[in-house]
């Protein structure tokens, strides 16, 4: 459902963040993306989320070239992608509940449904009791989990997560990864960028490895194991 076709990305300041990246994800797959700091992981996710546009090559989502999406189409495309941001990006003046409810509100869900879904998502990340708190009063790990709840609440066809366990302790990291692992069964495709090689190794899933903007490995457990 997602395909990178010889994608390069050069930022306006001349930094070449991606260099001829080529891969594709099937619907219902769960894939990890790893690499050193500054390798280009976040850049790949930003291209998918239409936050940046490729300098060369094409990013195709369900066959549609995202680099050519019209301005008016972007919001609709984004609603089909759940995003976990490396810096959380919570609305600091709204409660945890409101933050998680936001994607449903944007997509125009009937209010009855919203409450149920939001509570379900918060329970999944272990924050059921904090729905009235403001993000500023949460620990960093708790904020990260709110971001995860917000990304899954609308059950998007595609979920991209940037370092979702960077601020979580090992136990919680495993729980969150289990949460992601359960998503493909519901039809969601998942792409997770992460440094946590320990965790990734144990899960034995497909891993894309970036190095200085080049895709140097596409490890598939079925092939290697």
């Amino acid at each position: 459902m997602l395909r990178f076709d010889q994608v390069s990305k050069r930022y306006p300041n001349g930094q070449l963040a991606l260099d001829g990246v080529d891969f594709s994800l099937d619907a219902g797959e769960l894939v990890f993306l790893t690499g050193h700091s500054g390798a280009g992981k976040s850049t790949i996710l930003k291209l998918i989320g239409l936050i940046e546009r490729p300098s060369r090559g094409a990013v195709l989502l369900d066959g549609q070239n995202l680099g050519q999406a019209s301005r008016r189409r972007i919001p609709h495309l984004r609603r089909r992608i759940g995003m976990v941001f490396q810096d959380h990006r919570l609305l600091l003046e709204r409660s945890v509940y409101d933050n998680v409810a936001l994607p449903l509100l944007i997509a125009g869900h009937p209010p009855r449904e919203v409450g149920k879904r939001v509570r379900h998502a918060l329970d999944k990340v272990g924050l059921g009791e904090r729905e009235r708190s403001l993000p500023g009063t949460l620990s960093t790990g708790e904020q990260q989990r709110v971001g995860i709840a917000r990304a899954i609440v609308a059950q998007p066809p595609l979920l991209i997560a940037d370092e979702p366990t960077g601020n979580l302790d090992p136990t919680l990291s495993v729980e969150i990864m289990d949460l992601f692992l359960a998503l493909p069964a519901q039809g969601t495709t998942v792409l997770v960028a992460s440094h946590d090689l320990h965790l990734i190794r144990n899960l034995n899933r497909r891993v894309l490895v970036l190095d200085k903007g080049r895709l140097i490995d596409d490890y598939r457990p079925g092939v290697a194991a």
Partner: protein
Amino acid sequence: MKPAKRTRRRREPKNQVRVSRPGLRQRLSVWRDLHAYSLVSSLGRIVARPFATGLTVAVMGIALALPLGLGLLLGELERLAGQWRESRDIGLYLRVEVDASGARALQDTLGRDPEVASVVLRSPDEGLSELATDPDLAAMFAALESNPLPWVAVVTPAAAVDPAALSERLGALPEVELAQHDAAWRARLNALLALGRRAAILAAVLLGLGALLVVGNTVRLDIQARADEITTVQLLGGSDGFVRRPFLYLGVWYGLLAGVLALSLALAGNWSLQAPVAALAASYGGDFALRGLSAADAFGVLGLALLLGWLGAFLAVGHHLRRHRQAN
């Protein structure tokens, strides 16, 4: 690329639509919910920061009150000038030797003149008692043994007639000592009014510009402080409309509150000028009073303030969305 229209929901591949899609009635209710959400969230923002809101509204209110007050003042002046200008009458001061019967004869003659609409006579006694309302002059006239004032015929020209020409013609009549039409006085009044109008227009242009700038600038800074929030909502798939709506409501609230403030200030100003204007009018023996604001005016001002707030917000959000487009 065709821009996505209202049919977009149907275009999405069915296999990925696992979120239940609402029907027409539900979509209306969703639309209503979205607006309610924007309304409440903008109200919440206003209520949560009474100090900041107060400041903003005060600035906008003053910016609106000034052109409003100026406009009212100009209106009153025009009204006053109009009262004065309406009088096209010509005063004919008859020679001292013309007595009551001579004056009545002249009144008859003039009454038949096609250029004259009507003629009213004022006897020397009437003139004296009129002048005597001025305390200074009253003392002086009281000292006189006989009434030195002549008969006066007040002539109202017919509709299409030029009063100045008529005044000159009547001034040449043998019975008439002096025909007074006050053209010079009128010219001065008009020059004064033109000057006032020019100054007022200058000030009004500045003030109107100021009001728009204040609203736009306030909402712009407000947006700047919430740029992160806007970006996040956009990243979650919020359309421009969704982003814009709370700010438009915010602008409308600001405008409404500022309009109320401006009206209150105008009323207060009107009230505080009432006494001195009455005193001044009395010194002229007139009964001119400030008329103030009609209910229609008040609603007009509120509507304008509201519109201005909306427009300021619209421009500011539009500017922000356009500037941050490339980045997203």
